[in-house]
């Protein structure tokens, strides 16, 4: 069954790290440059993320993600390089277009922020199995009902994709066109989506009854098959990240004075 998660099943130290430690890394990587304010801090975290991704042997999976974000980064560079309100100093000409320094610097800051967030999230997403994450969240005191909600998304979506393919084939065999002009394609949308939506909503009824019968609404405390606790290396990483955030605050105060 096709999964929607990007998790790569590899037994590296990154996969074994507790999900909370990796979330702490995201927190530090996103907040420290914003607090510190200097461009080089983005560079520092980009380098750390890249090192983590390379050492975790998942760097190749990151390229499609970066490629996807590049279109948005290019638009930002074009719009702000050309039209930003604070543009004064012309940096270079590209044919009839003049790019300005202020706008490009502003765009660079946004672009670096996007890349930094993307890579930090990639270290988490590519190395954490969603089911493990839900398990760990529940063990930390998260409501098991919400836990069920998250993990069932991963089961429902591949199931719905299957229904979607069946319905698409069925409607095509009845002569519905799914290619052509915009009007033709727009008209195909309702006959495609409404059977999938209705059938999946009708399925929820059965599912709800099945869950109620199995004690979903029971208030007693849940037990776990596998108990996972924060190991020494997880705590060390979290302490290091907290230190980096504190350092960025110190740096901001120092440059401010």
């Amino acid at each position, binding site marked *: 069954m096709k999964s929607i998660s990007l998790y790569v099943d590899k037994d590296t130290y990154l996969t074994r790290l507790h999900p909370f430690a990796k979330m702490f890394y995201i927190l530090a990587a996103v907040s420290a440059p914003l607090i510190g304010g200097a461009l080089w801090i983005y560079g520092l975290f980009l380098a750390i993320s890249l090192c983590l991704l390379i050492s975790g042997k998942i760097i190749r999976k990151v390229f499609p993600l970066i490629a996807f974000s590049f279109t948005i980064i290019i638009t*930002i560079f074009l719009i702000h390089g050309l*039209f930003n309100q604070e543009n004064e100093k012309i940096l270079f000409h590209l044919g009839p277009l003049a790019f300005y320094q202020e706008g490009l610097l502003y765009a660079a800051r*946004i672009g670096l922020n996007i890349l930094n967030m993307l890579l930090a999230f990639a270290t988490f997403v590519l190395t954490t199995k969603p089911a493990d994450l839900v398990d760990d969240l529940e063990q930390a005191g998260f409501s098991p009902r919400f836990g*069920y909600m998250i993990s069932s998304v991963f089961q429902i979506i591949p199931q719905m994709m299957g229904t*979607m393919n069946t319905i698409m084939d069925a409607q095509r065999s009845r002569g519905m066109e799914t290619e052509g002009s915009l009007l033709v394609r727009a008209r195909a949308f309702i006959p495609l989506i*409404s059977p999938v*939506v209705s059938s999946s909503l009708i399925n929820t009824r059965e599912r709800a009854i099945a*869950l*109620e019968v199995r004690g979903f609404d029971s208030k007693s405390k849940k037990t776990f098959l596998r108990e996972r606790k924060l190991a020494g290396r997880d705590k060390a990483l979290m302490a290091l990240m907290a230190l980096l955030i504190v350092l960025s605050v110190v740096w901001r105060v120092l440059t401010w004075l």
Partner: protein
Amino acid sequence: MKNLFKTKLNAACFVLIPACIGINYLGKLFASVLKLPLWLDSIGTCIGGILGGPVIGGICGAANNLIYGFTTGDSITLVYALTSLGIGVAVGIMARLGRMEKLSGAILTACVAGITAVVISTPLNIIFWGGTTGNIWGDAVFAWSQASGLPVAFGSFLDEVIVDVPDKLITLLIVYAIIKGLPKKLTSLYELDDEVLSLD
């Protein structure tokens, strides 16, 4: 209306949320398979809001973006969890006020949802991307507004209006058509005023 935010948190509602998240995903997928210039990624959130009320709608929206952000690495989606939450709550409130019964009410709901989305997204767009949205039509308008010297906030607002309002209008028309076709057996699961009658 004291029942506006009343929510039943039973198994039926907890099953509705993942189904709605799945529907959001399918809407987005169909829109990209058919190459439509719209997002159509909040169909499920709107259905959740209509069936389960504002609280379930809000949870659907926020959970949708959080789950996608944390599993597909799309941190762009993560930023808009607040917008999705707003859309779910707005549609839920309008549905509880009885606006989704008629087509005219559905159009009004679409306007409310669209404006909610614009109001929440515009500051996020300015903070994270300097005002662009990533949609070609909207960004062309933003570029024009910046070139003619309008303030960033206003340009970004226009950018978002052009993208969000038509998107929500079509989304809610689709949702209206789907909800009208649902069997009573299913919608009665989520009705608030159902009392269990005993025979003795």
